[in-house]
Every structure is written in structure tokens, then in C-alpha cells.
């Protein structure tokens, strides 16, 4: 009975959302005064929240008559994972996604003020368009409340063991906060096409920045999770799912930079609108690629071609609708503006150019196998990671190159600080070379590129901070940006070092035997076994000695077996030292009693995620300062 209530609440939310869209559009065209539709969103939010908790209730009470619960949970699963199992599959994660969309709509409604209520109605109506499309999709083809008829299973299949993990419990909600947040700038941009221009550039900028912050954190969490949970120490695989999150991230990055120009200079207006639309379409294309099963990926949602088709149709409909509205609009730029070639306008243009090119070539590499199969009579291919590395690194290099001086330029025309910038850059490159050489002994071409990128970015930040230090207001205005830019440099540092200075070795050891890697000696000292309610593990205990200072510690990697889903998991063991991660993962135990294991050192790998956290904090700071400090 209770799950049926959840289903009815979903249908109610769908109806209210659809009606809000229709009445806002109608009242705008017919020019009829209408009551404040923005209050509807509180009702929708309440309905979705209730529906969410009803599904949670089914999970926590092991109600396996609900098909989705039966497929994604198990009585022996710890309570904590029963809770997060809700978003472990296609239907539940979609429910979480629409709930988060409604949260953003509530927050937007609370934080923005419009002098005319019709205008606010119109902005929210475009968010309703997406909300009811997805709600319809859930109700008609991905219903999480569907019953398992006739006989309910007694035990449930189990949550995929890879997802029984802390990072997984927070990764999807945070990522979805990022994706769903982009719907606000999308709505603002479409409303702008209907002449709702009150504060639109500032709003687009702020709402993109805050969504971008969550998107950054969400992607970083996914990368961190893959690093320790997939078991083999990689932090980015150019997997279609990862690419599907990177494309909207790049577009959103371009978007708020473009919105900054639109806001201050009243130019790039049409471009800002196009990017707002493209960011959301990018999310939808990603959703289609991930959930239709058209591409082979580590994130295999239940594959269902019918769902894929519906998602594709929704994506196409939203694309056509948005561009139809855009092409009918007539938004002009401030044409009387003069700016020289070394101005902030041009630097941000370059930033947008390179970010969009990056997004396009990553998307191209991701979907290329689909088109290849169609046009080559069914031959299938895969595009390897080297493609992505080869095309993204040079463009990222130029991006950083222009980013460094870009932050020092002013609107209109100015070539200030160019001397001090060049001096700082040269100094930084010189110092970094000496330091890197002292620490790592050798430098690859990749490291040299990395050093140049970091020096350019940091020099810009340092000079900008020094110049504005005396004026507290300007300093704080720029603090968010500077933090985020430092974050990018930190991430580049992590990527550069870990890509070329990691060590790895695959070994076969019996108890008592040792192997040496870099300056560590790994000794397999014992074996152990443990039993948990929903899985059991074989444990190999290693003693690791640092040969340069004689310190030693134990690492206990595990091989776990989950009977409910009959799956095997590799639980790596990682020791974090100031310089690097020492990483052991077990492959298998041979009949002879020997263990096959992979030993690795990963220098400065944590800087990759530390940088992302800085970017996220910078974004949140920038958003809060502009929203709340008047």
C-alpha cells in the first residue's frame, strides 16, 4: 500500500509541474494576470520529498515486493547502505535527480526577486519543462515503485558491492546538485529570449558558478572513488560516463566566464544564452549515453533500449524547443564598445573558444564508436585513452597559457603589469625546474608543459592578489576566482606528477617473501580471514619498510566475496605518506598458496582532488559574496 502512495505523489508532482508550465506560458502569451505560480514549487518539492522517503522506507524495511528494492538491496546490507542503495540503480537515482531539481527551484525562488511576478513565473516555467519531462519519464518507463508480481522475493539481489562505499553514497547527490543546478541558468536564458532581462546576466553567472562548484566536487569524488574502489589505482579512465560529466563541466566553465562579460560589458549576450542551453543539453546527452546502454562503460545501468529511445526523444525535444525560442528572439549587444586586442574581453573569448573546443572533441571521441558502427555496417571500435590524452593536453596547455595573464587584464584596453608578469613567470619556471629536478631527478616533456602551465596560472593569481591587497573589497571580490585558479594549478600539479612518476610492479609472493619497489620493501607476512554479515574476505598482510629511513607500517589489502550477487571485490590498501600513496591491491590467490599482487607508489596523487576542492570552495565563496553581500 505505501509504495502506491509514493507512486500517486509522483503523479501529483508531475501534474502540478505540467500545469505550472502550461499556465505560465499561456498567461504570458495571452497577457493575463495570474496568481503567483512560484509557490507551486513548494508543493512539488514536498510531494517529491515524501515520495523519496516512501521509497527509503521500502528500502529500510526490506520491502522486496517492490521490484526496484529487490534488485538493489539485501536484508544483510548494513543500514547505512540500505539508505544509499536508493540511488544505486537507474530508477531511484532518477528520483533523486528530480528531487534535487525541485530543491534548486525552491532555492532560486527564495533567493531571487523580480518586480513582475509574471517574469518569475516564466523563468520557473522552463525549469518545470525539464522537471515534468523527467517526471513523466519516471512514471511511464522507470517507475521505482513498480511491484514484483506475483510472488515477492524474500532476499533481494543486493546492491552492487562497488557501491557499498562511503564515496559512493555522497558522489551521486553532489554530482546531481551540479547537473540539476544548471537548469536554473538554462531557464534564465530562455526567459531572456522572452525579454525577461531583469538581472539576467548576474543571475546566470551566479547560478552557474554554484552548480559548477558542486559539479567539480562531484566529479572529483567519482575520481577518488574509482582510485581506491576499482582497485587498480587509476584516477581517470576516459570512460564514457566520466566524459559525460566532463563535457557539461567544460561548457559550464565557459558559460560563467561568458556571463561575466555579458554582465559587465553587455556583449556576448547571445553566446551566453547559447552556452546556457548547451550546458543542459550536454547533461541530457550524458544522461542518454549512460542510461541507454549504447556505450560500454563501467557504470552499467540496467540496459533497456526503450528507455534510451525515450531519453533521446526528450533530449531532442528540449534541444529543438530551446533553439526555436532562441532563434526567434532578438537580443542585441552593445555595439558602441571599443576594446583593444589585449583586453579582458578578448582573453575571455579565447577562454571560451578553447573550453568549447575541448568539450566538442571529448564528446566527439565518446560518441565516435556509435557513428562508426552505424556507417561501417556494424563493425565496432573503441576509442582508446591515448586519443583523449593526445587531444586534450595541448589545448589545456594553451588554456592555462592565456589564463595566466588573462586575470590581469582590464575591460576595454590595457596592457598593464605585463613586465612584472613576465618576470614572475620566468622566476617561477626557473624555481620549479630546480625543485622538480631535486625531488624527481628526471622530467618528462609532460612535466615541462605542466611546470609552464602552473607558473603562468600562479603568476597571474599572485600579481592579481598583490595588486588588490590594499583594497579589501576588490580583494574579496576576486578571492573566489583566485582560489579556483589556484585549484586548477594544484590539480595540474597532481596530474603531472602522478602521470609520469608513479611506480608499479606486479608480483607473486608467498608468505615470508619480499619485493622491492622504488624505495620500499614489501614483505607478505601473514594471511587472515574475516566474515561480515553480507560478505567475507581473504586478507593478505604486508609489512612495508621505507628503505631510506627505516620506518615501517602494515598494509592489509583484501579480496572480498559477496554471496548475494556472487561477485568478487578487490579492496585495495593505501598508506598515505606526505609525498606519495603506497598502494597494494590483490589479484588472486594461487592454489600453491602464493598471492598475486600489484604494488604501486602514487606521488602527490591527492593534489588532484585537493585542487578540485579548492575550485569548489572558490566557487562557493564567489557565489555567496555576490548573492549575500550587498
Amino acid at each position, binding site marked *: 500500500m505505501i509504495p502506491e502512495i509514493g507512486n500517486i505523489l509522483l503523479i501529483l508532482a508531475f501534474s502540478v509541474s505540467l500545469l505550472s508550465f502550461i499556465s505560465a506560458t499561456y498567461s504570458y502569451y495571452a497577457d493575463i494576470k495570474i496568481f503567483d505560480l512560484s509557490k507551486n514549487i513548494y508543493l512539488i518539492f514536498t510531494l517529491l520529498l515524501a515520495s523519496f522517503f516512501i521509497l527509503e522506507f521500502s528500502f529500510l524495511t526490506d520491502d522486496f515486493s517492490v521490484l526496484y528494492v529487490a534488485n538493489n538491496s539485501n536484508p544483510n546490507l548494513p543500514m547505512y547502505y540500505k539508505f544509499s542503495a536508493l540511488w544505486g540503480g537507474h530508477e531511484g537515482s532518477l528520483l533523486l535527480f528530480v528531487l534535487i531539481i525541485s530543491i534548486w527551484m525552491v532555492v532560486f525562488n527564495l533567493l531571487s526577486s523580480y518586480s513582475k511576478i509574471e517574469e518569475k513565473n516564466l523563468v520557473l516555467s522552463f525549469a518545470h519543462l525539464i522537471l515534468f519531462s523527467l517526471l513523466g519519464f519516471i512514471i511511464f518507463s522507470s517507475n521505482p515503485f513498480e511491484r514484483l508480481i506475483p510472488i515477492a522475493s524474500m532476499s533481494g539481489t543486493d546492491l552492487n558491492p562497488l557501491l557499498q562505499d562511503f564515496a559512493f553514497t555522497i558522489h551521486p547527490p553532489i554530482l546531481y546538485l551540479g547537473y540539476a543546478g544548471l537548469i536554473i541558468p538554462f531557464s534564465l536564458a530562455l526567459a531572456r529570449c522572452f525579454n525577461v532581462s531583469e538581472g539576467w546576466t548576474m543571475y546566470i553567472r551566479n547560478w552557474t558558478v554554484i552548480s559548477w562548484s558542486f559539479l567539480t566536487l562531484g566529479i572529483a569524488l567519482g575520481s577518488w572513488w574509482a582510485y581506491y574502489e576499482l582497485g587498480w589505482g587509476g584516477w581517470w579512465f576516459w570512460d564514457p560516463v566520466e566524459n559525460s560529466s566532463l563535457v557539461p563541466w567544460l561548457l559550464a566553465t565557459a558559460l560563467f566566464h561568458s556571463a561575466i562579460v555579458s554582465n559587465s560589458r553587455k556583449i556576448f549576450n547571445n553566446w551566453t544564452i547559447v552556452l546556457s542551453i548547451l550546458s543542459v543539453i550536454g547533461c541530457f546527452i550524458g544522461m542518454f549515453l549512460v542510461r541507454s546502454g549504447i556505450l560500454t562503460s563501467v557504470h552499467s545501468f540496467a540496459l533497456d533500449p526503450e528507455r534510451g529511445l525515450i531519453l533521446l526523444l526528450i533530449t531532442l525535444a528540449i534541444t529543438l524547443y530551446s533553439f526555436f525560442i532562441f532563434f526567434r528572439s532578438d537580443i542585441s549587444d552593445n555595439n558602441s564598445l571599443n576594446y583593444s586586442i589585449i583586453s579582458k574581453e578578448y582573453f575571455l573569448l579565447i577562454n571560451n573558444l578553447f573550453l568549447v573546443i575541448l568539450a566538442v572533441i571529448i564528446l566527439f571521441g565518446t560518441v565516435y564508436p556509435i557513428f562508426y558502427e552505424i556507417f561501417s555496417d556494424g563493425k565496432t571500435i*573503441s576509442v582508446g585513452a591515448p586519443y583523449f590524452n593526445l587531444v586534450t593536453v595541448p589545448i589545456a596547455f594553451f588554456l592555462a597559457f592565456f589564463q595566466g595573464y588573462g586575470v590581469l587584464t582590464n575591460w576595454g584596453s590595457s596592457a598593464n603589469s605585463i613586465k612584472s608578469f613576465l618576470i614572475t613567470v620566468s622566476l617561477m619556471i626557473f624555481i620549479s625546474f630546480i625543485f622538480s629536478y631535486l625531488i624527481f631527478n628526471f622530467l618528462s616533456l609532460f612535466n615541462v608543459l605542466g611546470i609552464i602551465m602552473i607558473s603562468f596560472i600562479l603568476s597571474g593569481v599572485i600579481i592579481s592578489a598583490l595588486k588588490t591587497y590594499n583594497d579589501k573589497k576588490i580583494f574579496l571580490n576576486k578571492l573566489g576566482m583566485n582560489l579556483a585558479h589556484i585549484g586548477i594549478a594544484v590539480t595540474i600539479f597532481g596530474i603531472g606528477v602522478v602521470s609520469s612518476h608513479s611506480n608499479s610492479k606486479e608480483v607473486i609472493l608467498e608468505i615470508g617473501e619480499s619485493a622491492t619497489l622504488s624505495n620500499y620493501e614489501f614483505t607478505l607476512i601473514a594471511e587472515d580471514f574475516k566474515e561480515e554479515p553480507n560478505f567475507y574476505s581473504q586478507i593478505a598482510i604486508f609489512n612495508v619498510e621505507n628503505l631510506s629511513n627505516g620506518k615501517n607500517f602494515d598494509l592489509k589489502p583484501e579480496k572480498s566475496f559477496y554471496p548475494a550477487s556472487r561477485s568478487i571485490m578487490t579492496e585495495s590498501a593505501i598508506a598515505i605518506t606526505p609525498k606519495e600513496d603506497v598502494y597494494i591491491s590483490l589479484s588472486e590467490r594461487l592454489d600453491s598458496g602464493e598471492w598475486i599482487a600489484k604494488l604501486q607508489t602514487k606521488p602527490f596523487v591527492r593534489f588532484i582532488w585537493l585542487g578540485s576542492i579548492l575550485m569548489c570552495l572558490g566557487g562557493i565563496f564567489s557565489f555567496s559574496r555576490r548573492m549575500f553581500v550587498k
Partner: protein
Amino acid sequence: MKQHRKNRIYVILFVGISILISIFLVFSALQENINLFYSPTDLKNNPPVSDKSIRAGGLVKENSLKRDKDSLKIKFEITDLKNTISVSYEGLLPDLFKENKGVVATGYFYSTSNEFIAYEILAKHDENYVPKEVKKALE
């Protein structure tokens, strides 16, 4: 005004050149880094002509897995139930690598010895999941 027009030309040139360079980058990188998929039957009938790496997939043949003593060298056979190829590989096997289960190997094929030297072995995380290509190869 003249300066303005000049700037516009610079910008168009810059954008044009960047896009051209990117397209060139994309296509030269694609040339080198796509891996065609072959089933054992494909490998028998139309072996690859170039020396580029390819992917081969099917089921791991029962009782075909042989492990070298004291090294990580492995040999096994991939079958699509019509034809079989033998695969050599040195390294760790994924957790879901099992006999009679689907597998995709990336590496180089030597048609003279009918042997596939793999540098990467993939088996998917979900045990009920069969890679799309493997499913097709078995039909």
C-alpha cells in the same frame, strides 16, 4: 573604427586557425588510437591487415587457462563457439575473468601463428553483463 575592424579580422583568423588545428589533432589522434573489434571467426576469415592493435572478444574456453610457473604469463583461448584463437598475456587478470564467461582482450594478432598477444584484458564488473560485442560475436 579601423582598429576595431582590424581586431575583428585577427579574432576570426585566430578562431579559424584554432579550430583547424583542433580538427587536425582530432583526426591524427583518431588514426592511431581506435581499436577495431574482431571475433575469432572474423580473425580467421578477414585477419587485420595493418599492424595496429585490435580488440578480440568472446568466451573464455573451458579448461584452456594455463598459467606459467613463477611468472605472470598466462595463456587461454577465446571462442565464439565456431572458431578459437589462443591468447597470451602477461599481467593480472580482472576479478570477473572466468572460464565460459565473456572477455575482451586488446592487443596484436599474428595470423601466421593464429596467436593473439594481449596487453589488456577486460571483463565487466557485473557478472550477468555480457559485453555488447561479445553478445554479437556469439550470435
